């Protein structure tokens, strides 16, 4: 790291340094401001431990963890297939996977409503079978999976691609079956990328707002996740204090979780594949 800093010298270094300082201030100032204003509040603790905050936080953590479990369970084998396949179909699907990244979440929410809503393509059929998805906790998970999965799949795919096939081949000639090889060689070697993807994907699920409000609504205790609760608090009279507390809480939880993941993704052998 240090060496990389030192290499940047001359005019480019000065310019880059200045831009970097401005950027850090630009990102840092709002975060500091949020924390400072929240801390200045007299009833911060009450707001944070209040019913509204805890209900929303519990729902946010529960839904995002379920979403990530779904994303990992389905996304890992899928990412592996994408990384290893040369088939043209795999390349087409590879492009489609990233579509939700560029799609505005609100649009994703409307689209999901059209598919799984009560009068949607599949939803109508589900409804007649007595299953309804929209405006339930399940819909929250649907929305989060939709927007968060591409971040995980993309990162995991790059991770698998970085593991040369020869490692898997050698492992097999040593008498280890392909499935065991995946657990003992491929997965550990791709772990840094997978954990990064996990972090990005989880952060995206936790912050999901647009698709959730369109498809799942804003029902306290059922579909009102933290971001929705913050907006609701903001809109109510004198709710700024409450919104500040909720925001600070979400910020702290996110930073803690992401730091833990970053530590977990460090490997002694990084860059030696």
């Amino acid at each position, binding site marked *: 790291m240090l060496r990389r800093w030192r290499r940047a010298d001359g005019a480019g270094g000065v310019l880059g340094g200045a831009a970097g300082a401005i950027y850090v201030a630009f990102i840092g100032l709002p975060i500091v401001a949020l924390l400072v204003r929240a801390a200045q509040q007299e009833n911060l603790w009450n707001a944070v431990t209040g019913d509204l905050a805890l209900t929303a936080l519990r729902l946010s953590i529960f839904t995002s963890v379920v979403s990530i479990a779904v994303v990992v369970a389905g996304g890992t084998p899928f990412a592996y297939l994408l990384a290893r396949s040369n088939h043209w179909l795999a390349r087409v699907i590879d492009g489609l996977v990233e579509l939700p990244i560029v799609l505005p979440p609100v649009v994703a929410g409307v689209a999901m409503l059209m598919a799984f809503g009560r009068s949607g393509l599949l939803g109508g059929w589900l409804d007649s079978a007595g299953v309804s998805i929209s405006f339930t906790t399940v819909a929250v998970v649907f929305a989060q999976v939709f927007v968060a999965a591409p971040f995980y799949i993309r990162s995991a795919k790059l991770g698998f691609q970085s593991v*040369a096939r*020869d*490692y898997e*081949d*050698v*492992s*097999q*000639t*040593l*008498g*280890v*079956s*392909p499935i*065991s*090889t995946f657990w*003992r*060689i491929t997965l*550990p*070697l791709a772990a840094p990328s997978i954990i990064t993807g996990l972090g990005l994907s989880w952060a995206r699920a936790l912050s999901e707002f647009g698709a959730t409000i369109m498809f799942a609504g804003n029902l306290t205790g059922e579909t009102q996740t933290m971001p929705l609760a913050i907006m609701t608090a903001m809109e109510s009279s004198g709710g700024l204090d409450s919104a500040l507390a909720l925001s600070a809480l979400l910020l702290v939880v996110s930073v803690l979780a992401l730091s833990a993941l970053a530590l977990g993704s460090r*490997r*002694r*052998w990084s860059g*030696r*594949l």
Partner: protein
Amino acid sequence: MNGQPGCRGWLHCRLGQFDLRLDWELDAGETLVLFGPSGSGKTTALRALAGLARPISGRIDIAGQPVYDSAGQIWVPAHRRRVGYLTQQYHLFPHLTLAQNISYGLGSGWRNPRTGNPGAGLEEILDAFQLRGLEERFPWELSGGQQQRVALARAMATQPQLLLLDEPFSALDAGLRRSLRHELRVALARRPIPVVLVTHDREEALSMGDKVQVIDEGRTIARGLPIEVLGQPGQTAVARLVGVENLFRMKVDSRHPRDGTMRLSGEGDATPVMLEAPLDDGALDGVAADWVTVGIRASDIILSSDEPVGSSARNRLPGTVSRIEARPPGYLVELDCGIPLHCQVTGASLEEMGIRNGQRLWAVFKASSCFLVQESAAEGAGDPQGASPN
């Protein structure tokens, strides 16, 4: 375990447009060298033997057991084949220590009591490959030579019945290669199993191989003892692949059966060049060819600054140095004797004789250093069906 402990069979593989046909026969303790340029299908052959690539047809017997037979619908997957495979880059698992790398294949797969031998113990292997004290190191904390040793130890730990080596020395520097080649031979002698080694390095083929098959564009074009096939190759195609520096098409002037030699002349730029070469008996017998192709290895030619008198060498050609290029370990000097003659000299000779462009020198070599090369290609191995026991 049962049957002969060697490896034999034939293969037909296709990789896109590329077509590979190969047949081989190999006893335990023998090393077969597959020699050829990159892209000739050598690695494909190894992968098929290891069970990592599936041929279109063929049969592979290892230790008397078929592991692949297209006729009998037999396909043993890589992890059940008991074939050790050393890749060019070794591919030591970077997240595992040396000890973990070596014991990786132990205790799984073929430790099955039904299939026989368990792998040798880790301790035993560490001693055998002189890796004591390095157990806790990670692969990147090892030297190139140590990495190779670990890769070999890891492969041998699972007690394979066939060992495949894909250019095992290409990642090492020249000095290390020599000592490691010796080390590898010693390690292999301890546990005699058939070995297939792939290389495009002539020296490696000569020092490691008991047998050699020259592969070009997916076909075996020559096979036999390394010293015969690679030393004085009998065909132009092989001669070019093994890097015979001097190949000339020459006219037969006269034959001297009593001396076992003949005189050849080549069209030089100004004057005809005369060479004395062994008589073309044997293969070309009965057909008194007017034209022959003759090969001379650059290392068989001696350069002299004065006209050599009183020498038994039958060929003494004067010429002018037209080019000098570095060719480790030494230099390749091109001497224009009417025909461009390439001669290998050491750096010391180059310096002592003060060899430079335009200098007049004599090239001296024995008649027996000239060998006749057949213009034809393709050995009878083109039909692998013939080698199939079906």
